[in-house]
């Protein structure tokens, strides 16, 4: 390929521009600036193209654009030495040059910023209304399923229970175990200072049973199953499977949402219980190694000083967490529009929102129980 060149001569009568070489899109960057700097100043222009060896639409666009620019400035323009094929290409291109190209950049200013904040606020309000509506719809279908249990999709429910519950057992119990170890270890260092090592049992049992066990389990499940719900139902939405279901007289809530939410409702308390036990085991092991509190002593102390209520208070929260995770994940999935990009965004939003809501609800319960005095 020959390098494209642009040279221009000025004389009394007008301007002569010589263009030569290969005018191809890939090498246009070398002559783009030269083309832009050409200004006819109202003089007549002759464009000599006899040195042009080849031309594609990119090169033709530059010539056509030059022609048009000179034309609108009031001067006359002549193309000379043009090969026939190139002439017809330039003609095709100039016929197709659009009036205005491109996307308008969104306006940036104080008014637009305020308007955007307003739009977002209105959007957030609408989303809240919509999600509460979806919660109501899900609860209605859930109750209907309980009244008419034969409508329940049992195969889907069992499969979801396996996915969200059974397969989460290893990670949840490992997490519980490690939390117990960490609490025992950290607690021991502090309690040793005033010789109150034995209180490590209460530290571990109350914090794990009441708060940490179920809270961390819910966070893991939100990340693990919430994202899976949004991604799978969201992809079905993109593929129009949800619409197909509706036309077949199937209720997507009943077919897709209920088995998932119900599976979480059943499995999250079980997972929370497993995490509690694993936490106690981890704590007891660490207390034994680090403080010399034997497992027997740990168990006796646990029985004497920790009420079974502590366990109950922890597990009571589980169904609420499960409902929030399931409903947010499925609602986000239903908001997926069009592209696969949207599935990714909604999955992220689903996980962030459900973890935030789990922590917020946990805080509310905390206040509620302390007001009740338990």
């Amino acid at each position: 390929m020959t390098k494209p060149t642009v040279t221009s001569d000025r004389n009394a009568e007008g301007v002569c521009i010589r263009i030569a070489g290969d005018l191809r899109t890939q090498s246009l960057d070398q002559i783009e600036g030269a083309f832009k700097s050409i200004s006819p100043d109202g003089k007549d222009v002759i464009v000599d193209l006899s040195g042009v060896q080849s031309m594609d639409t990119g090169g033709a666009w530059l010539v056509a654009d030059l022609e048009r620019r000179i034309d609108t400035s009031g001067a006359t323009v002549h193309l000379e030495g043009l090969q026939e094929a190139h002439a017809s290409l330039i003609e095709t291109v100039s016929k197709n040059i659009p009036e205005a190209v491109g996307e308008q950049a969104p306006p940036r200013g104080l008014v637009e910023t305020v308007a955007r904040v307003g739009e977002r606020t209105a959007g957030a309000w609408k989303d809240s209304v919509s999600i509460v509506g979806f919660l109501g719809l899900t609860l209605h279908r859930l109750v209907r399923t309980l009244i008419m249990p034969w409508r329940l999709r049992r195969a889907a429910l069992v499969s979801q229970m396996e996915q969200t519950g059974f397969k989460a057992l290893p990670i949840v119990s490992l997490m519980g175990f490690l939390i117990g170890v960490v609490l025992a270890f950290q607690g021991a260092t502090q309690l040793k200072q005033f010789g109150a090592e034995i209180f490590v049992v209460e530290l571990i049992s109350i914090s794990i049973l009441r708060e940490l066990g179920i809270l961390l389990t819910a966070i893991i499940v939100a990340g693990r199953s919430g994202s899976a719900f949004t991604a799978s139902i969201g992809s079905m939405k993109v593929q129009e499977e949800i619409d197909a279901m509706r036309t077949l007289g199937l209720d997507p809530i009943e077919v897709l949402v209920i088995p998932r939410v119900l599976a979480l409702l059943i499995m999250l308390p079980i997972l929370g219980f497993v995490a509690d036990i694993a936490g106690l085991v981890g704590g007891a092991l660490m207390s034994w190694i680090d403080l010399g509190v034997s497992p027997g002593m740990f168990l006796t102390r646990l029985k004497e000083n920790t009420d079974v209520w502590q366990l109950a208070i922890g597990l009571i929260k589980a169904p609420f967490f499960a409902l929030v995770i399931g409903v947010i994940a499925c609602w986000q999935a239903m908001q997926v529009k069009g592209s696969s990009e949207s599935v990714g965004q909604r999955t992220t939003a689903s996980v962030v929102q459900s973890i935030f809501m789990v922590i917020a609800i946990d805080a509310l319960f905390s206040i509620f129980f302390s007001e009740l005095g338990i």
Partner: protein
Amino acid sequence: MDGATLQQDSQTGAQREAVIKVRNLTNRFGPQVVHENLNLDVWRGEVLGVVGGSGTGKSVLLRTIVGLNRPAAGSIEVLGVDVLDGPEDERKRIEKSWGVAFQDGALFSSLTVLQNVMAPLREHTGISESLMQALGGLKISLVGLPQLSCSKFPSELSGGMRKRAALARALSLDPEIVFLDEPTAGLDPIGAAAYDDLIRELQQALGLTVFMVTHDLDSLYAICDRIAVLAEKRVLVEGPIEEMTKVDHPWVQEYFTGPRARAAQQKGQDR
């Protein structure tokens, strides 16, 4: 014509240049043999239609030529460059001289139509943003899309518009060869005919060579210069469509003399 083969046309005696040369190609997926000793030439400036029954490996052939599928044996030359074992930099250069429009567009869903068309320019040229936008807009206008669609996302377009946008993206580097996979599948007859005309127009205006996998008899009659029929794991016959009816092979006979073929032929003559 760096290294590309010139050959005498047996009928017209005119010189023609093979831009794609496929020799002894074999494709195998596990025990299933799709192509065996397949030979095919594509001449510069022609529209070649590749037809064949389902599962005869039309799309596999296309994917093999553009390097998306590694064949078990054989050689492929595009514009004189061995695309399978040639030097890396030559192969990179060749990749810029073809454009591929996939069946369902395969547009990048996170980019607008204009950004999709600009993507190859951004990657392979050093031209300014404004020129890129101008050339992108030109390509969009060339394929007959309204400028309003520039800022739309692929998911907001109809199937036909997506196909046009995919063609605009395939054309963005002004390739010499364009590969089209089922360009008119899923379009209504009017839309399909308009798309055929568009391909013909662009092919003549830009001097393209078109390699087209299709099922559409109307397209075959309307725009294809030559047809290659894939059957029995090879190119069974190739030639102009008038010769197809004379081929003594059950599938080819049924395909080109069936009622739909006769109707398409009628239409092709009317146009």
